[in-house]
C-alpha cells in the first residue's frame, strides 16, 4: 500500500500512509488510538474507498472497492468492532454468503460440520448451533476469528483480535497464527498489547496521526523504541508502590450475592482508597457480579453495604445515587449513546448537575467540563460536538471513562477499562486510577489481562465459575492467581472453597 490518503468529514484519518506485507510474515501494525490503523486496513479490505494512493498485490496495482473483491483477492479481515449477526447461530455467521447448498437448499448439517471442524482446529469448544447473541464478547470474538480463518486467505488482517480474550485463548490464537504463517499466509496484526507484539510478530510498522512513521524488525527493536515511535516521546513505566489501605474504612461490602449458576455466594469488601482487582477466566462471572451490584441485572439474594449502611439497589439509578459507577465491558452496547456527541456522552450520567430548577440545561457548563476531560484524558476528537460513534475505539472508551469521572462517584467499578486502549493512554488510565484511589475512592477493576491486574491491584479477587475462589494480596504471583482461577473442584465443594477464601 502506498501513499494512501483518506479523509472523513472534519477528520484526516490517513495521509500518505504506507504498509508492506510479505507472504508468511506476521506484521504488527501499531499506533496510538486514532492513529489510523483500522482505517488503513479497512481501505485494504474494501470497506472504505481511498481518496488517493495505490494498493499493489504481488507487485500489480489492484482496485479493491468492496469486501467481496477483497475476499476474491484473498484478503480477509477480523474487524475491531464485532460485526456479527446476533440472531444467527455461530455456524450461520461464519459461512454467511458461502452457505453450503444441496439442490439450492441450505445444507445445515454440512454447515455445522464444517464449522465444527474449524472450531476443532482452533481447539475451541463451542456448539456450531449456538446463537451468537447468547455468547460472551470473548466467544463472539472467537467466532469472528473462526470466520476469518474459514476464508483460507493469503492475507489475514486481525484488528485487535485479543482485546476480549484471556491468556489461554490468546495462546491458542498464536498457535493458529504460527500455523498459518508456516502455510505462507501474510498476517497483519493490530494490537495494543506490547508483549504480544514481541511474541508473535516479525516486523512492526508504526503509524502516528494517520502517517507512516517507520518499519522495524520486531525481535531486535526494544519495546521502548516502538513506544516512542508511536507517541513521539518516551513513557516512564516505573512500578507503582502499593499503599497500605487496611486501616481505611470499608466503602463497599457485598455479602452472599447469588444468582443461579452465574453468581454463587460472592462476598467481599473494598476499602476507601483501595483498588480491588478481579481476575478470572472468561465467563468466570466477574461481569455478572459487577452488574448485579450495580443493579443492572436482578440478584436472587445478597446484601450490599455502602459506607457501613445497607442499601437496596434494584436499578442502576439506585446504585448511582449511592455513589457507585460502573464502566461496562461492552462500550458500544452499554456504554455510549452512539448517536450523540462527545459532550453529551460525558454529561450523560450527570445531567441533573447541569440542569436548573426549570429543567433548562447549562450548555456552557457541559461544554467546559467535556473539554476538561477531553484534555485530561487526551481524547482524540475534532471537537466536543463530534458524534461519539465516529471516534476510534479507544477514544470511545475514554469518553465512557470521562462520563464516570464527571459523575464523581465514591465507588467505581471498571470492567475491562483498557480494552482496546493504546499503551500511552493505558498508562494514563493507570495513573488516573491510582490518583482516584489516592483521593480515597474505592475501585474495583475487572480485567482479563493479568499484568494489568498485577500492576494496579492492592488486593486481587479471583473468580471461577461464579464463585469467589480467593482474595490474594496485590503482590501475588501469576501462578497463584491462575491456580485460583481454575479451581473448579473447589467450586464443586463449597466447604473446601470457603477455607481458601
Amino acid at each position, binding site marked *: 500500500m502506498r501513499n494512501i490518503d483518506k479523509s472523513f468529514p472534519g477528520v484526516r484519518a490517513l495521509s500518505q500512509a504506507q504498509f508492506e506485507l510479505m507472504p508468511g510474515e506476521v506484521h504488527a501494525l501499531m499506533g496510538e488510538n486514532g492513529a489510523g490503523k483500522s482505517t488503513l486496513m479497512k481501505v485494504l479490505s474494501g470497506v472504505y474507498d481511498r481518496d488517493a494512493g495505490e494498493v499493489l498485490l504481488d507487485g500489480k496495482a489492484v482496485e479493491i472497492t468492496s469486501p467481496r473483491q477483497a475476499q476474491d483477492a484473498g484478503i480477509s479481515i477480523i*474487524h475491531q468492532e464485532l460485526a456479527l449477526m*446476533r440472531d*444467527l447461530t455461530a455456524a450461520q455467521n461464519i459461512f454467511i454468503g458461502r*452457505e453450503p447448498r444441496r439442490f439450492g437448499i441450505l445444507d445445515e448439517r454440512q454447515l455445522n460440520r464444517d464449522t465444527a471442524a474449524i472450531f476443532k482446529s482452533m481447539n475451541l*469448544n463451542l456448539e456450531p448451533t449456538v446463537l451468537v447473541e447468547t455468547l460472551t464478547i470473548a466467544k463472539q470474538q472467537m467466532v469472528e476469528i473462526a470466520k476469518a480463518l474459514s476464508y483460507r486467505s493469503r492475507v489475514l488482517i486481525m484488528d485487535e483480535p485479543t482485546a476480549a480474550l484471556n491468556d489461554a485463548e490468546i495462546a491458542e490464537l498464536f498457535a493458529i497464527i504460527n500455523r498459518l504463517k508456516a502455510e505462507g499466509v501474510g498476517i497483519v496484526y493490530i494490537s495494543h498489547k506490547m508483549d504480544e507484539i514481541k511474541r508473535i510478530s516479525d516486523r512492526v510498522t508504526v503509524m502516528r496521526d494517520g502517517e507512516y512513521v517507520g518499519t522495524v524488525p520486531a525481535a531486535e527493536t526494544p519495546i521502548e523504541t516502538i513506544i516512542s515511535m508511536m507517541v513521539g516521546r518516551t513513557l516512564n513505566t516505573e512500578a507503582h508502590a502499593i499503599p497500605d489501605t487496611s486501616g481505611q474504612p470499608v466503602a463497599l461490602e457485598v455479602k452472599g450475592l447469588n444468582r443461579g449458576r452465574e453468581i454463587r455466594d460472592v462476598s467481599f469488601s473494598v476499602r476507601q482508597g483501595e483498588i480491588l482487582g478481579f481476575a478470572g477466566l472468561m465467563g468466570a462471572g466477574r461481569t455478572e457480579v459487577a452488574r448485579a451490584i450495580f443493579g443492572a441485572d436482578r440478584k436472587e439474594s445478597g446484601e450490599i453495604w455502602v459506607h457501613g449502611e445497607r442499601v437496596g439497589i434494584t436499578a442502576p439509578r439506585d446504585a448511582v445515587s449511592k455513589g457507585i459507577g460502573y464502566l461496562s465491558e461492552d462500550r458500544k452496547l452499554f456504554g455510549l449513546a452512539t448517536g450523540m456527541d462527545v459532550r453529551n456522552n460525558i454529561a450523560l450520567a450527570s445531567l441533573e448537575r447541569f440542569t436548573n430548577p426549570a429543567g433548562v440545561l447549562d450548555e456552557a457548563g457541559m461544554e467546559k467540563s467535556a473539554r476538561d476531560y477531553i484534555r485530561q484524558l487526551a481524547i482524540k476528537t475534532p471537537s466536543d460536538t463530534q458524534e461519539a460513534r465516529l471516534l476510534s475505539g479507544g477514544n470511545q472508551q475514554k469518553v465512557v471513562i470521562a462520563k464516570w469521572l464527571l459523575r464523581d462517584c465514591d465507588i467505581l467499578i471498571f470492567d475491562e477499562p483498557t480494552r482496546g486502549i493504546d499503551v500511552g493512554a493505558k498508562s494514563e488510565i493507570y495513573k488516573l486510577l491510582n490518583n482516584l484511589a489516592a483521593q480515597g475512592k474505592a475501585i474495583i477493576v475487572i480485567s482479563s489481562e493479568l499484568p494489568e491486574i498485577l500492576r494496579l491491584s492492592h488486593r486481587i479477587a479471583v473468580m471461577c465459575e461464579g464463585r469467589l475462589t480467593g482474595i490474594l494480596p496485590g503482590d501475588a504471583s501469576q501462578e497463584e492467581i491462575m491456580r485460583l482461577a481454575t479451581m473448579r473442584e473447589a467450586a464443586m465443594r463449597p466447604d473446601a472453597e470457603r477455607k481458601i477464601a
Partner: protein
Amino acid sequence: MTDTAAPAQKSGIRMTGAFHRLLAFSGLIALVVVFSLASPNFMQTQNILAILQATAVNGVLAIAVTLVIITGGIDLSVGTLMTFCAVIAGVFLTYWGLPMPIGILGAILAGAASGLISGTVVAKLKVPPFIATLGMMLILKGLSLVISGTRPIYFNDTPGFNQIALGSVVGQIIPAVPVPNGVMILFLVALLTAFILGKTALGRYTFALGSNEEAVRLSGVNVDRWKIGVYALSGAIVGVGGVLIASRLNSAQPALGQGYELEAIAAVVIGGTSLSGGRGTVLGTLIGALIISVLANGLRILSVAQEWQTVVTGTIIILAVYADILRRRKL
C-alpha cells in the same frame, strides 16, 4: 468448561423451542375458550370456517409483511398492493378475456414487480422502508383507481374464479370439513414461506439483514440484491392475497385496501416478530392473524356494541403482546 454446559444448553434450547411454540398458542386458546363458554354459536363448524375464511386474506398479507419486517424493514403498501394485484387480475381476465391461470399469474407478477420497485428504492436509493412503502401505498392506490376507472371489475366472465377462495377441494374429499380453498391457500403460502425462511439462502439473508446489515455487507454479500429479492417475494405473496380477495368478492374493488396494512403488521407483531428485525416466524404470524379474526368474530357473535368492540380489541391486542413478553421473560 463449555463441554459440560454445551449439550445441556442445546437440549435446553430445543425444549424451550417446542415449549415456546406451544405456549405461543396460549393467547389464541384462551380467547377461543372464553368465546366458546360465552356463546354456543361460537364453536360451530360454520363459524370456525367463517373465522378461517376471514383470516385468509389478512393472513397472507401478514406473511408477506413478516418477510420485510424480519429484514428490519416495514411495508405499508401491502393493503393497496393487494388491491392493485386484484385490479390487474380483473384487467387480464375481464377486460382482456385471458385464461384464468394467466390472470392469476399476472396478479402475482404485478405484486412481485411492485415489491421489486419498493425493494430497489429501499436498497439502492436508501430511502427508509417506511417512506418508500408509504409512497408506494399512495401510488398503487391511485393506479388501481386509474386502471379500473374507479369502478369494481367483476369476474362474471371467468366462471370458477370465485372458487379459488370460496370453493372447497377438501370438502369434496371429506364433506364433513369443507375448508374453503382460500384457507388452504393461506396454509400453503405459510408452509412455502416457512420453508424459504428456514431452508434457503434467501431466508438466511432475510434474518441476517435484520440482524446486522452492515455485518452482512462486510462479509461480502450482495446485500442490495438479496434485499430486493425479499421485497419482491413479499410482493408476490401479496399478489396471492390480491387473487384471494378478488375471488372472494368475485370482483376487484379498487378502493379497498388502505388500513389493511396496519392490521397485517399488528398480526405480525402479535405473533412475536420483532419490529427491529432479525427474528420472527411464519407460525407466529398465523397465530397473530387468527387472534385478530377470532377476536373480531367472537365479539360480533356476542353482539357487543361496535364502539365497545373497538375498545376491547385495542385492550386485548396490548394484553396479548404483554402476555407474550411475560412468557418470554420467564423462559
